């Protein structure tokens, strides 16, 4: 187990390097002079620009800039301290350390993603098991058809429709935001939950689709196993057979999709935060992109990628822990 852990940890290093190199290069090759974008000052002469360029080390060769970006400049000539020491640069527009802005915005985004994951997992798994038990019957077909529809409807269209129905027409749920505008500091829990419902549902719908399909396939596989037949022939009730013997074992491979789920939810939250005006990381990225505030965009991309890599790592470790057969292969 320890050797496996160490090997698996070492494997993440090239991936982390790749992520940072790609992000770094994409922004490097963006059109336009970074100095112009940074200062917007028409009184700047060519010499001023040159000086700034030297101060910010933008005149150094690319590999050197990348090294400084990663581990910082230890001679102290350049401002970078390196992302491995938590320095993701400073926002051009807000003039604040990016990591500080990120820390503020990650909370609201986590509320959404965790909520969506909960809805998706609970509903998805239940639907998947039901679908497998009633294979080929009406309820199975309905659930499968619904999961394809959930896949196909664009999240923003679903969001707009839900806003129109629940917000505008029936007026039972808020249209967006995290708390009512012009509200006092303390907002009670119920109001917060009301604001959470629509965004988490929109974000969770795709996850329900994936989960139910996956769970259906796994349960079908398990239902054909000998021990399920044994359990049935022992005279156990259907409920016990399905939920105690079958579902438990069907759940094991589900951990495999935790990694991809993190990717999908992080991406999806950008769209959902935009529709529901949710003050999270996704909206920060969109704002930064439209203002060409690239340090912010780079930081969010790199941190999100680290989260994804960590999620994949966790998945692999969990899989080995719950299913010892995996270790052999």
């Amino acid at each position, binding site marked *: 187990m320890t050797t496996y852990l160490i090997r698996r940890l070492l494997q993440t290093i090239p991936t982390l390097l790749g*992520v940072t190199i790609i992000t770094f290069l994409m922004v490097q090759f963006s059109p336009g002079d970074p100095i112009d974008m940074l200062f917007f000052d028409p009184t700047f002469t060519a010499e001023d620009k040159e000086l700034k360029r030297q101060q910010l080390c933008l005149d150094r060769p690319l590999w050197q800039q990348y090294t400084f970006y990663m581990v910082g400049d230890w001679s102290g000539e350049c401002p970078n301290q390196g992302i491995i020491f938590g320095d993701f640069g400073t926002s051009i527009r807000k003039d604040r350390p990016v990591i500080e802005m990120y820390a503020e915005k990650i909370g609201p985004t986590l509320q959404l993603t965790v909520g969506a994951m909960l809805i998706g997992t609970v509903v998805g798994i239940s639907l998947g098991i039901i679908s497998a038990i009633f294979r080929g019957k009406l309820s199975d077909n309905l659930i499968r058809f619904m999961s394809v529809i959930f896949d196909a409807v664009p999240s923003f*269209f679903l969001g707009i429709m839900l806003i*129109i129905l629940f917000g505008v027409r029936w007026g039972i749920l808020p249209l967006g935001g995290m708390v009512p505008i012009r509200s006092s500091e303390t907002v009670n829990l119920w109001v917060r939950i009301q604001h959470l419902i629509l965004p988490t549902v929109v974000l969770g719908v795709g996850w329900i689709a994936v989960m139910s399909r996956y769970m259906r396939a796994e349960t079908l596989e398990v239902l054909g196993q000998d021990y399920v037949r044994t359990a049935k022939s022992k005279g156990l009730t259907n409920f016990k057979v399905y939920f105690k013997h079958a579902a438990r074992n069907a759940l094991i491979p589900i951990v495999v999709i935790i990694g991809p789920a993190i990717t999908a939810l992080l991406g999806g939250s950008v769209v959902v935060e935009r529709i529901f005006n949710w003050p999270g990381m996704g909206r920060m990225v969109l704002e930064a992109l439209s203002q060409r505030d690239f340090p912010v965009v780079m930081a969010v991309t790199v941190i999100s990628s680290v989260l994804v890599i960590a999620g994949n790592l966790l998945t692999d470790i969990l899989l080995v822990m719950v299913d010892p057969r995996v270790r052999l292969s």
Partner: protein
Amino acid sequence: MTTPASIQDLLREENQKEALKDEAPLSFWQIALIRIRRDKLTMAAIIVIGIILAASLLSTPINNALGVDPFDTDLLAQFEPPSAKHLLGADDLGQDQFARLIYAGRISLAIGFFSAFFILTIGITLGMVAAYFGGFVDDIIMWLINTLNSIPQLYLLLILGALFEITPPLLVIIFGFTAWPFTTRLVRGQVFSLREREYVMASTALGASNMYTIMKHILPNVIPTVIIVAARAVGNLMLAEAILSFIGFGVRPPTPTWGNMLTKSQQYVFEPDKYYLILPAGIMITITVLCVFIIGDGLRDALDPKLK
């Protein structure tokens, strides 16, 4: 004395004779076709997609016949509700919504299909190369795949969308270069497992070159998997296009796409009399993607019944 080549020739002749008989066994593709024909849901989806495709491809003649143009602005027709002249009404610029909707379909569908084609080309080539050469080349390709898979794809697309002025062809290229890893990994895995099959070993034992074995025995067996992936890819890419346009980093107006039509109409959620501007584009995306996914599932059931 027979050489290996002539054994192959004999076998081929034998097979051809067999195929000419009346009760010749059905080929893999013939069986798949029969299965699809029996699958009512898939057939319905194919028909709907066919209609949407036809309307999009013929959008210019249809619009000419109706006397409307997707780019004409007419301030007198501003916010005109659906009528005989403007079938789906007109927007804030007086642009005919029906004309824009079917014209946008052409762009959305083209982006979906061309990007999927592009992705499959890159994906299959790299997947075969990785599995064929193995070693260092395989390591590099796998590293690229792991890296690209670790960056949330929407972020990659957003950055590229912010850096460049997005036109439909550019979007196809961007999708092509960011979305190939899934196909590559799948093809690579398939080739690895097919390499161990007896018929591949037999081919090698008969003296066939590696290239011949790959093209003749491995590639045809990868194709079914690839077709299933392709159908999913077309749908997902159309969704990605719509999402990018919706967030404002995709194809921009005046060129209409279903995504940017929806973005523009989003501001009217409080005005029920203008819902005719919101619904059509959203419904079109949903129906099209839904049909593409259903066809994908139908193809999967037909080509690989074990997965059902």
